[in-house]
């Protein structure tokens, strides 16, 4: 089988579907296959990847090879009394929840999709709607297994291998192949949340609302309309939620009949449909304003209900822009970003605004830091999109902010190095690299 280890595959893309360079991919199923894979293929660089929910090029390695870890997806142990779980890196959050929810446990924090692997969650130090209380994913990692091309198999803990531990959390897979992860889960009293949905009119209403919600609500997130101008400018919907303790532990379904089988024609998402969507979304949710009981799946993972929704952006794909602005500058900078985005008319419907809390992110290259984060998708239209983003970069840089590597496919290297100043301390594995790393760090 070894001769077939890496197979060319033009269907292996990142979530944004902009870069179309074919990748050479190995798909191991067992940890014992990994040492030969990272030693294989001479000088070509390797990169272990998971479900490729990263939007840009941090999960691509066009001049090297990819090791798709999705088949290395076994649970190693789970203690229902303590909530400590150890699983191979390819286990998805969806699989994990299907196992642990019924026993009264949940992921300590979760991104907006459950179709990420544990390895990917660790390597991107992902965050969720509970950041102000829980911090980033890496804070809940007790240890992990790392396969290095220079040192072999290691069990990495914060005490035993601090440099590797804090390099690998948020380290974009560059410090070795993450083989397994041990996590501390959190207790839940049921699978449903008490969700309060509140429309707000403009950013001036958003900031106090977000601040006042912090102490009383575990989960907070807001959608913001980046398409409308005038009186509607900056309006949005904030939702805040707490777990309900009722002992009803319904588990989500991981299969969906709704999927997008083909790439949509390029026109499907344009200025008009984008604005129309924002209008409909705002009014639907305003009408629903108030309290409701929601299962964790529609609350945390609304888009997971439609598989491959990213194909709606058509053949050219999309770019996501997610920045964080330090707290001192958040109001002015988010305001300025909104100005540029609405004026451009390029924004699509998925814009998310959220404030980060003070809990420090453990990783050298972790993205979350105290302040506010804005994330939105742009259908890729070549130069026009890139120029718009360069303008946004200017605002973010001036405010001392940073862009999220997991979402990025185009930031200038200089911007990365300035906003992740400890990047040179990363204990990188010499055999590993990615398109992202070559673009920003070399």
């Amino acid at each position: 089988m070894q001769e077939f280890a890496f197979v060319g595959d033009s269907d292996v893309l990142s979530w944004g579907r902009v870069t179309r360079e074919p990748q050479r991919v190995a798909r191991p199923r067992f940890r014992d296959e990994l040492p030969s894979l990272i030693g294989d293929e001479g000088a070509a660089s390797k990169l272990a990847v998971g479900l490729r929910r990263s939007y840009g090029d941090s999960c691509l390695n066009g001049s090297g090879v990819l090791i798709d870890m999705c088949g290395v997806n076994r649970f190693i142990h789970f203690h229902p009394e303590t909530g400590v779980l150890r699983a191979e890196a390819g286990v998805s959050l969806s699989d994990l929840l299907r196992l642990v929810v019924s026993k009264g446990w949940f992921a300590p924090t979760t991104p907006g999709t459950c179709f990420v692997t544990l390895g990917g969650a660790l390597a991107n130090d992902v965050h969720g709607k509970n950041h102000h209380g829980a911090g980033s994913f890496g804070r809940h990692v007790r240890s992990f297994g790392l396969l290095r091309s220079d040192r072999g198999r290691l069990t990495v803990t914060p005490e035993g291998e601090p440099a590797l531990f804090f390099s690998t959390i948020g380290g974009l897979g560059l410090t070795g192949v993450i083989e397994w992860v041990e996590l501390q889960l959190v207790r839940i009293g049921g699978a449903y949340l008490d969700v309060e949905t509140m429309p707000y009119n403009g950013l001036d209403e958003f900031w106090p609302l977000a601040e006042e919600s912090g102490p009383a609500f575990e989960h907070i997130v807001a959608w913001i309309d980046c398409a409308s101008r005038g009186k509607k400018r900056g309006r949005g919907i904030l939702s805040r939620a707490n777990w309900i303790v009722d002992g009803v532990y319904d588990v989500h379904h991981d299969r969906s009949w709704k999927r997008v089988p083909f790439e949509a024609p390029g026109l499907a998402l344009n200025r008009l449909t984008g604005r129309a969507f924002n209008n409909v979304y705002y009014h639907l949710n305003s009408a629903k304003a108030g309290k409701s009981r929601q299962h964790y799946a529609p609350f945390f993972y609304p888009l997971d209900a439609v598989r491959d929704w990213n194909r709606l952006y058509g053949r050219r794909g999309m770019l996501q822009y997610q920045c964080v602005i330090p707290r001192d500058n958040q109001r002015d900078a988010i305001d300025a970003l909104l100005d540029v985005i609405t004026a451009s008319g390029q924004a699509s419907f998925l814009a998310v605004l959220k404030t980060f809390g003070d809990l420090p992110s453990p990783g050298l290259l972790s993205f979350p830091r105290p302040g506010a984060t804005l994330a939105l998708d742009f259908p890729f239209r070549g130069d026009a999109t890139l120029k718009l983003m360069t303008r946004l970069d200017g605002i973010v840089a001036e405010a001392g902010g940073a862009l999220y590597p997991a979402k990025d496919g185009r930031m200038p290297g200089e911007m990365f190095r300035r906003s992740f100043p400890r990047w040179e301390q990363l204990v990188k594995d010499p055999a590993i690299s990615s398109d992202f790393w070559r673009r920003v760090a070399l």
Partner: protein
Amino acid sequence: MSAQTQRIVILGAASAIAEATGRIWAAERARMILVGRDAARLESIAADLETRGAEGATPWPLDCANADAAAQFGKMAEALGGLDVLLLAYGVLGNEAELEQDPKAVATLIQTNFTSAVAWCLAARAILEKQGAGALLVIGSVAGDRGRRSNFIYGATKGGLARLVEGMAHQLAPLGARAVLIKPGFVDTPMTASFRNKGLLWAQPEQVARVIAAAARRGGPIVYAPAYWRLIMLIIRHLPTFVFDRLNI
């Protein structure tokens, strides 16, 4: 199946399809014996299945293609205290062009895919007969339905399995036990890793696993996985020779 714990033996338990099926059975709290060559891999699968809910998952390192099936199988059934399901899931694809040049490799392929499988099936039959219950599930292939130039040696072994399982199903039916041949089409597994550009007809191991788990409860003797392959193969089997000969499949 009743709420009673199912007792299951999986031959070739480290294969992608078998492991996916094992996960379904683990969620149903089955007790399983996992047979395969690589002890360490079986250990990691066993830990996973037990974490997922299996009442037991016991690694049983053994080369299925070259084992004393009757003796081994007796021990397994004894360890489980009976048998509800045997899943025979090991096999090799081989490379047709290389096989045609190498009679020894052909003999090995036939030993693995067919000869040893006959021995396991006969060993299982003895127990199913005695119990008057239980299911023998064998993974065949759509390649066994009509010989094609691209893989007729592999296809011949899978076609042979079809006749074997058909006959055993016939024999077991009056006794209350079942034999089922599951015929997957194209499945995205390490066995087919070298195939490029997998299109619409390719299935994931989990889809095939769901068909197998359903077959453990009812149905047979021939089940296609996914089901649309029944129609595809119906057409392929009935293509007139003058058309079939022009197809490069």
